[in-house]
């Protein structure tokens, strides 16, 4: 069973993401801030990280950078964000993000995107 780490400070969004994957054969881990996310990534070795940018403490960009450089370079990271400006996308790609999910999102489309991402051959 593949493990997805969902990082968002809004419990409602974490619940929604977990509900979206319910019955789709994934294990969902939840973190509410950057430190917790890095800690869980180290201990639980998720297969994919769905990461909000605006989170308390270490922000999403920095969490992504650390995941990609130190903790889990080959694990895909999708940035989940309410900001859909170009500058955010550029910064996201600079720190190694593999893709973006803009809020609001369709749960079915999110599941499909993650299925596809995990099915793609590892780089």
């Amino acid at each position, binding site marked *: 069973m593949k493990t997805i780490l969902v990082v968002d*400070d*809004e419990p*409602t*969004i974490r*619940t*929604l993401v977990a*509900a*979206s994957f319910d*019955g789709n054969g994934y294990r969902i881990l939840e973190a509410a801030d950057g430190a917790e996310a890095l800690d869980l990534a180290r201990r639980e070795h998720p297969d994919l990280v769905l990461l909000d940018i*605006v989170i*308390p*403490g270490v922000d999403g960009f920095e969490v992504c950078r650390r995941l990609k450089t130190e903790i889990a370079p080959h694990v895909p990271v999708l940035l989940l*964000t*309410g*900001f*859909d*400006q170009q500058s955010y996308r550029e910064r996201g790609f600079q720190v190694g993000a593999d893709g973006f999910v*803009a*809020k*609001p*999102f*369709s*749960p*079915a489309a999110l599941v499909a995107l993650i299925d596809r991402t995990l099915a793609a051959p590892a780089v």
Partner: protein
Amino acid sequence: MTTNTRVQERARPINSSPGVRGHLNELQLLRAAAQSRALMRAGMTVLSKLDEEALLTAALDAVWSLLRADLVAFFLTTDQEEQPRLRALSTPEGSQIIQEGDGASLSLPRKVLASRVPVEIDSPWQTSAPSRNGGTLRSVQSVLVVPLDVRGSRLGALAVGKRGSEPFRRDHVGIISTLAQQVALAVDNARRIDQARLKERRTRDLLDSVADALLVVDGGLRIVYLNQAAAALVRQPAERVLGRPVLEALRLLDEAGSSTPPEATPFPRAIKEGRVVTGTAVLALGEPASNVPVALSVAPVKAPDGQPAYAVAIMHDISREKKIQRMKTEFVSMASHEIRTPLAALQGFTELLLSRDVPPSVQQDWLSLMNEESTRLAILIEELLDLTRMESGRMRLRREPVSMAEVVRRVVALMERHERRPRFAVCLREDLPQVTADPGKLTQVLANLVGNAVNYSPPRSIVRIRVQRGCLAKPGTEHLGPLAEDGGVACPAGISVSVRDRGLGVAPQDLRRIFEPFYRAHAAKAEGAAGVGLGLAIAKAVVERHGGRMWVESSPGRGSTFGFCLPLDERWVQRQDGDGRLEGKPTADEGAVL
């Protein structure tokens, strides 16, 4: 003292034309040649001085050395005074320049001074002007007075006196007349130069007082002038910049921060195209961090032949405007982000509920989450509209005389029902002056401050509310301006309200930023306190719309005091300051727990 009338009566004009009669012998010729050389040298020395005092000193020396006169005096008019006054005096004891108000009282009758031809007076003439060695001048027997005229204007007179009563020698009269002409010319030159200097200094002062940066380049694009504001803008002393090519001294980048080809910058364009070129640019001043965005307009100045000879540039630092623009963009971006989160919950759960069979208990959970999020969205949109209306000035205030005591009572009554069961200590005087304000908006501001105090303090804490004439902020606490970096603006010093809690407190780095829209201090987020981060921004905007100023004092772990000061209505200030009835320490309700 001078016997004016007598002098006047006995004054006799002399013929100043030194018509040469008979033959001169060789000795006389040699003496005349030596004399004219000496006169020439003396004249040159006098004319070379550009300063009135220096030239008068030189002139006294010249007359003295040429004639060994017992007394030489210069009388000069000024711009303010038509009557010539004694300005320089030379006697065997020494010479002196007389400043206005020195009290020297050597005078000549007005009529003699006004004469256009030399006048010789044979009468005793003395002065009470103190000589250098402290004594008083003895009288002289004969005086020759020569007018100082130049270019049609009367500058005064030169008076030369001697002890003997025999008439002045004709050649001496000639020498004195010639010297007088040269002195008059030199004085006139010096005064014209002074005036030109004064005019130039005035122009310079004027240009330096212009708040915008002003810079002039010549046809070769070299900087020939910059005012103080321009030197401050380019952060270099004017001397370091003057004479340098403008495009080298000021690196102009385009708005994106990339360099512009030299010929495309406004300076060469204004000169080449012969028209005003306006635009915005970025002034590169060393490191990227110190780049300054400027609005500039460059106007060509045409030479008499119609060719652009100079260009005058006005530059205006638009950092503040840019900052406001950036804040607006950020605000829109944050607003859209804040709206998207509850929207994501609403849209996501709706899709899930429609697309699959969900057990009723889970359905209930999701629906209550959706309910919470839609409430949050509604509050958010309400607050967003409030803030934008407030900041754009579209919010109409319904101003009326408001008693702050009444506002405090209303807010306390509202907050006492809060689930954290707060307690309130209110300190105010019932006879405080009223403020002219929108009571609803003021209640909203105070409710926000008190609400924060309650939310960020442990349950059943005491929140202290104080209202007082004057300012309640501690000395050194900054009153905030409309922009966070405006800090330290003046207190309107009318009536102030403070709300003190013993809660979380605010970290120094968050202190100013907590008033920015959507900014929520780290501690507040960690505490999971409700709100979207617009409350303080709205409170601050409301206070500012009332002409007031917000302030905050806090240290983490020891609580915060949020306060605001409002101006008093002019009518109240007049009425209250008269009898001082409202001065003095507050007494009512001190420390009472309601």
